[in-house]
């Protein structure tokens, strides 16, 4: 069932109503707070190089951290499911520690903690004449390792969703365990992993703002700085509304990409199509009641 037009109209009406309420409030309060709507429109429609840099930094940090997270997640999941007990304990402790402590604490500990204790100085790396600042490295590392703990659980769920017979069959055909995992189990697990993975990346795009703790000038921090000094200072309403719009734009673009990826990973499976873009943006439609007769068709 495709989304119907009335639904779109209702959603748009809702947004319009919200804007009207905001506009109404703002005119009432104009005497109290000196609104500068030009700041809002400028930072949205004519973003300064600082804002563009912030966007790039947010996107590139999020993508790099997510890639690290996925790689760690695959190894973490294999560790948790391994027969070898040291691997199991290592993976369990990793997930336990990184899922059990606040990310903000991890970021501060990984950057300043290691710096001060002289364990690792996070030196700036120079690659091809471009400096790669220590703060960004630490940020990517912290976000990636934290994400890895969550991805471990997601990948583990994906692997468990694949019928154990698949692995047995592959092994009996003479495939080694790593090969069977790579060729048989993980590709099938991907269909289950991808939707929550998309969710995680959506989160990651926004979580980069926690790097304010170590002064990495990503999108939120840029707006924080714009609010802190210069000609736009102390207009938090207009600035952070614009900042929210930028994040909304990034996550919306990601929704479109995610819908595309899910269709691709899910091809070859019968059943309902993955939700389209509209459902994703304005809430999932009601699923048809689950009909067990369609699944357990007798043996």
């Amino acid at each position, binding site marked *: 069932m495709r989304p119907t037009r009335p639904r779109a109209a209702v959603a748009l009406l809702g947004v319009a109503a919200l804007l009207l309420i905001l506009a109404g409030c703002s005119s009432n309060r104009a005497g109290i707070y000196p609104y500068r709507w030009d700041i809002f429109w400028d930072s949205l429609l004519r973003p300064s*190089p600082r804002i563009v840099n912030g966007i790039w930094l947010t996107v590139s940090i999020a993508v790099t951290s997510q890639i690290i997270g996925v790689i760690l997640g695959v190894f973490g999941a294999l560790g948790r499911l391994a027969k070898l007990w040291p691997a199991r304990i290592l993976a369990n402790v990793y997930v336990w520690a990184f899922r059990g402590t606040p990310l903000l604490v991890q970021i501060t500990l990984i950057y300043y903690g290691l*710096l001060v204790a002289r364990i690792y100085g996070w030196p700036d790396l120079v690659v091809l004449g471009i400096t790669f600042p220590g703060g960004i490295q630490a940020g990517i590392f912290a976000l990636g390792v934290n994400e890895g703990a969550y991805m471990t659980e997601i990948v583990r769920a994906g692997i468990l969703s694949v019928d154990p017979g698949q692995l047995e069959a592959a092994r009996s055909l003479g495939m080694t365990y790593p090969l069977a995992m790579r060729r048989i189990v993980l590709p099938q697990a991907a269909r289950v992993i991808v939707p929550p993975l998309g969710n995680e990346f959506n989160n990651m795009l926004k979580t980069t703002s926690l790097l304010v703790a170590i002064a990495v000038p990503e999108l939120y921090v840029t707006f924080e700085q714009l609010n802190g000094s210069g000609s736009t200072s102390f207009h938090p309403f207009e600035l952070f509304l614009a900042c929210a719009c930028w994040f909304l734009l990034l996550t919306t673009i990601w929704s479109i990409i995610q819908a595309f990826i899910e269709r691709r990973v899910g091809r070859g499976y019968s059943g309902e199509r993955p939700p389209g873009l509209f459902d994703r943006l304005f809430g999932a439609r009601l699923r048809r009641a689950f009909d067990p007769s369609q699944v357990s068709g007798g043996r």
Partner: protein
Amino acid sequence: MLLTPRKGAIGAIVALLILAACQANNAGTSPSAAIQSTAASPVATVPTDQLKFPGKLVACIDIPYPPQESFDDQGNPQGSDVDIARETASRLGLILDVENSVFSTIIPALTGGKCDIIISAQNINADRLKVVDMIPYFKAGQAFVAAKGNPKNIKAKDDLCGKVVAVQEATTELDYLQGTGDYKGAGLSDGCTKAGKPAITIKTFVKDNDALLALQSGTADVYFADSPVAGFYAKSHPDQFELTGLTLDVAIEGISVDKGHTGLRDAVKTALLSMINDGTYMKILQKWGDQDSAITADQVNSGKL
């Protein structure tokens, strides 16, 4: 395994993103420094092993704290601290690089090797001197900013009792409010409770401008900061803020250097004294309206007002 076109493409995208990250950050934090070199030859030389990068002086600064440090509209650091640091660097034959930092972790950033000096409106106090060496360079009181019209009528210390005060973390102002550090036993809030009045509600913020935001939004009654900063905000936003007229304890601010780096410490001090003696120091402070915060060469040497 063969490198398929798709894998190559993914690799290329990742590489591009990483490069973008670096460039984005470069543009954000290290502006092309316009150096007005006044000294023809360096007034002192810094041992190279006491610098993070040869030829560079990296200064940790917590921005914003205007007029001492702020960003201009292009995102370049500016202010009297930035100019003093730049002048110091140029007198030592170095180029200034600013590392924007967070005040509560700015000393760890220095001792951990992220920068060579801290010049960020830091009062000299016993706690800090345990960890770093500090060269006196500036003096400031501590002042309170209220909303326009001073609606809570704050005129004296006693008026703060029972009020909500917004303040930045890890500052001497916070020490003063809660009676820690150099203000042990002399905290403003303790003073209230001892006199049988309600305690001060202290709201702390990681960034100083967020403390002012608390005042602006009405969740705090007053904002507490160094007097030049308080004065700057009251003057630049007269429609929203005003000074309460209550100014406490004038103290000396210092440039922090790692304890092991005595060569760097002495060189910075020599450069500072030379710019005090030829008047450049005063010109910088006047440019930012900080002339009342100037200290003399004797005060730099003695560390006492």
